[in-house]
């Protein structure tokens, strides 16, 4: 279990009720989003399942006997989706990918790593990027495949790389 420094809001009961006052609500959602990202980062998770949300210590604080309801979790995730920090994996909106960084940021991060290591105009497999020894210590090491793919696609749009299919493996050529 990841140990993170819980913010003061975590022990403040109103934090677990979505506030109706718009300004307050903004602050509250921002705090939640920050907490969620921090929590997932520390435990290397990328996925939030809304149905399971009640069981994680992230959304429930037994010390003050408060839990964030599923509706509230959904509200927060939808707010995150608006600024590109999360996306539902399907239409039922039960499983969400949460991006510690936006896809653009991820892409840029990878590209700067590629440039730094002189891998331009060469081909890497996705497996190399995720699990390879060379990427150890980089933030994107161990990144979820789907998220990685999306990040690279955003790079592809900018013309900085090209995704390609090998036999049953995916590769990417950086420019």
């Amino acid at each position, binding site marked *: 279990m990841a140990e993170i420094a819980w913010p*003061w*809001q975590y022990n*403040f*009961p*109103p934090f*677990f*009720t979505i*506030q*109706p*006052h718009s*300004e*307050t609500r903004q*602050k*509250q959602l921002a*705090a939640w989003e920050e907490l969620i990202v921090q929590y997932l980062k520390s435990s290397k998770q990328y996925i939030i399942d809304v149905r399971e949300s009640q069981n994680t210590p992230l959304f429930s604080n037994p010390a003050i*006997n*408060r839990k964030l309801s599923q509706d509230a979790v959904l509200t927060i995730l939808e707010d995150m989706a608006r600024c590109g920090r999360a996306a539902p994996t399907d239409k039922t909106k039960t499983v969400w990918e949460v991006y510690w960084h936006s896809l653009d940021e991820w892409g840029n991060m990878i590209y700067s790593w590629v440039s730094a290591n002189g891998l331009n105009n060469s081909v890497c497999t996705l497996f190399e990027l995720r699990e390879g020894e060379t990427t150890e210590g980089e933030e994107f090491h161990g990144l979820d495949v789907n998220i990685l793919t999306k990040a690279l696609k955003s790079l592809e749009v900018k013309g900085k790389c090209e995704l390609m299919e090998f036999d049953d493996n995916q590769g990417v050529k950086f420019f």
Partner: protein
Amino acid sequence: MDRFEYMEARLCEGENYIKRDKNVKLYDGDDKTQYVDGEVVLTSHRLLWGKPGDIPKGLICLSLYLYYVFCLEEENGGVFGLGGPKRIIMHLGPALPGKRPGPAVISTYHFIKLSFKDGIDPAFYKALSEAVANKLWERHPLETNAFSSPTMSPRSSIAPIGTKIRSGIVGIERSIEEQQKATDESITVAFKDLTKLMEKAKDMVSISKTISTKIREKQGDISEDDTVRFKSYLMSLGIDDPVTRDAFRSDSDYYMGLAQQISDMMVAVLMDSGGIMSLADVWCRVNRARGLELISPEDLLNGCKLLPTMDAPMSLRKFPSGACVLQLNSHRDEEVAKTTSQLIEENGSLTPIKLSQIANVSVLLARERLFTTERLGLACRDESIEGLAFYPNLFLSKV
């Protein structure tokens, strides 16, 4: 007393002399009568009373049939209960029709008293109760023909003349009709009283007015404090001239008058109760002050709606939740929110119920106050299984 009959002091056939006593005074219920210092003779059927010497001579005397008596009682004599009982109370049944004329035509009492100057002779009392208990008249009815005047015998008069025999639908209808009549009458009587009371109320108001002016004039004698207190009593007693619908030609005039009156009387009340009061409470207060000329909730609402048009220091306010209140104009949201948020900070957190206890307002209003505070961003809510509570808005205040 109306059960007595004038009769000749003579025994009839089948009637037996039992006992006599002297110095007896008769009471009609609790009232004294002119029949004092007489002689009583008890027979198996009757009780005779006559002036001393009259009974032995067989003159006209007062006669009471014992079948009227259903209960005897000794009255404890003397102011301090000294000297033993002096009076016998005889409780009597209703006078039967067809009885001979007596000393009284009608009496409000259903008992008489025999007062013995020398105290009750226990033997006499015993004989009297025995005679009543024996009911000899049931076995040996008196031959009243022996008496001269009336033709109707008292026995026959015992027959149930008083009961009405009614049968069939007509009988039922008639009894229903009679019942309705009786109800009708009692209602009329009741309302007559009410009108009188209202007239009296006006008098009362004028009296209280004069008293208050007198007090004002004599202010030297009475302390300022007393005057103020008396005035506040008068104020809480009511409005001295309630606006009524009769006095106005149109509804709008009536509502205007009503609004004026509401604003006049509620200013002080609102100040006392923190500047805000739910309309239901206002309605109670207004009607209490009006006494009898009550107004309907609708009239109150219509009156309150007109308050802003006449520059009243208060106005009707409808919260988003639908609750209606009467609010002093000085009682602005910002002020409310400020004081409420201070209270929240002092207490850590507040539920509507807690606030209602602290601020001495109704729970409904406390809720509204908290919502107002929240709307202005000075509080934030916490909804849990324990209910709704409000906390200081640390989201905005804490960086």
